[in-house]
């Protein structure tokens, strides 16, 4: 068995007095898709925003416990460095409207002021767009604005933008919730293809999506981790009664 890329240990988080996550412990294996599943308000988005230290940008945010990336506590490091190693894709596609498709892909380098040679940039752009399955659709309009793309294409552009930074982990926060079924199917296929390159943590409120794309599933309910295991096992023989009720649609 591989050693985990990411280990979350007794981690709690909240806003001011409100506790959103309670004592979460789970580990994420490399080159697998781990789904965080649960009803609205269960804390799954808060959890992935803690993994790249975006949670603390909200005033009043609190955290305790440890999150280890390759054995090193990310809360002991500079958040800027953590975010360079952990990419994120958001609910709504958010390519930078003032940048071309090309510059959107290398936006991480532009933002961080990393100067790259022309060939190096060309290589990163082509490589990232190919991995995000967008290259063939945009190769002849790389220098046009990314906002003219369809929603699904924009989301794949955001995936390419995150991939370009060569992250250890890619966080996806309900990446298909703003997309139509066809674009959703395309992104789900892409997630399955991407795991040979990167470890993926996927937040979803869609049970079927977790079943289709993930290798491991964590079920969160009211800020607690109820159950965590292989997706196959959780969906066939759930250990906890609440998991079973959620999977069978009794609540959520």
């Amino acid at each position, binding site marked *: 068995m591989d050693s985990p890329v990411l280990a979350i240990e007794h981690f709690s988080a909240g806003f001011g007095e409100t506790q959103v996550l309670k004592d979460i412990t789970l580990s994420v294996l490399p080159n697998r898709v781990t789904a965080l599943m649960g009803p609205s308000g269960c804390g799954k988005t808060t959890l992935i925003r803690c993994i790249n230290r975006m949670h603390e940008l909200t005033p009043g945010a609190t955290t305790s416990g440890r999150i280890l990336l390759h054995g090193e506590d990310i809360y002991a490091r500079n958040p800027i460095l953590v975010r360079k190693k952990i990419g*994120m894709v958001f609910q709504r596609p958010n390519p930078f409207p003032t940048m071309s498709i090309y510059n959107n892909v290398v936006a991480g380098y532009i*933002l961080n002021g990393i100067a790259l040679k022309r060939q190096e940039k060309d290589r990163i752009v082509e490589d990232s767009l190919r991995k995000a399955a967008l290259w063939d659709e945009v190769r002849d309009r790389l220098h046009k604005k990314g906002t003219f793309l369809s929603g699904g294409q924009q989301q794949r552009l955001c995936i390419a933008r995150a991939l370009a930074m060569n992250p250890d982990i890619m966080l996806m926060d309900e990446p298909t919730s703003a997309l139509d079924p066809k674009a959703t199917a395309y992104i789900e296929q892409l997630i399955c293809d991407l795991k040979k390159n990167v470890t993926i943590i996927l937040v979803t409120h869609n049970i079927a999506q977790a079943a289709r794309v993930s290798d491991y599933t964590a079920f969160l309910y009211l800020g607690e981790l109820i159950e965590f295991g292989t997706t196959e096992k959780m969906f066939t023989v759930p250990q906890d009664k609440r998991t079973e009720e959620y999977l069978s649609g009794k609540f959520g």
Partner: protein
Amino acid sequence: MHISSDRIFKTILALAGISIPALLIAFIVTLLIDSVPAFLRIGSAFFTETTWDPVAQQFGVRAFVVGTILTSCIALVLSIPFSLSIALFLGEYYRTGVWSTLLKSAIELLAGIPSVIYGMWALFVLVPMVRSVQLQLGVPPYGIGIMTASLVLTVMIIPYSASISSDVIAMVPADLKEAALSLGATRYEMLRSVVLPYALSGISAGTLLSLGRALGETMAVTMVIGNANRMPDSIFSPANTMASIIANEFAEATDPVHLASLIKVGLLLMIITMLINAAGTYVIRKKTLNQ
């Protein structure tokens, strides 16, 4: 009874609404009619000549157009670093809290100070400062002139461009800012590469609107510009703007051509200011619709 009172109410509202465009048209028509003697006597020399000498019946507006544009543009350039910093402070770093409330009310108060007060302050504070700089530079130490007027205009327009720009910066979608941060950008890098490019058109619109204000500012400028009816030869020389020449000479203009020429200056100033304001409003509206 109820129906007729409703109709009367609606008519009153409609009349009140019509009165504003009607006033605007009346303004333009009055200015046009009253400037006819100047059109007849002076013709195109009004725009091409630089000499303004009521005694010799020479009325050329060129020097005042240059004076207006020079003072306004210097003020604009000087105000941008300040208004942009204030806008970033209010729109991004301190959107709520004691400091932002304090700064916001200070800006509102600055915008509300009567311009004659600004003029007085400029006479007592800016003029001696400019004079000592002129002594250092070895240019004639007038104190009053283009530079002094530009400085007081700078202070007067900062509240306008700062408040519009901070609103525009605060409107930049949070998900774009988060996207930048999630790529490992620092706050400064995010502002430079994502927030400012996104807000650029709105900030330029705010700047254009404050330019419109600087062009028409009369009292404070008249008090410190030096009132010299000639082409300025340096940024320190005493001059006149379109607004200040009207303020200075209107009361004494008894000669009909002189009076008509002043009215024509007013008409020109009004058209320029309206065009600048329309451009600024257009850019802001286009930006708001795009979101």
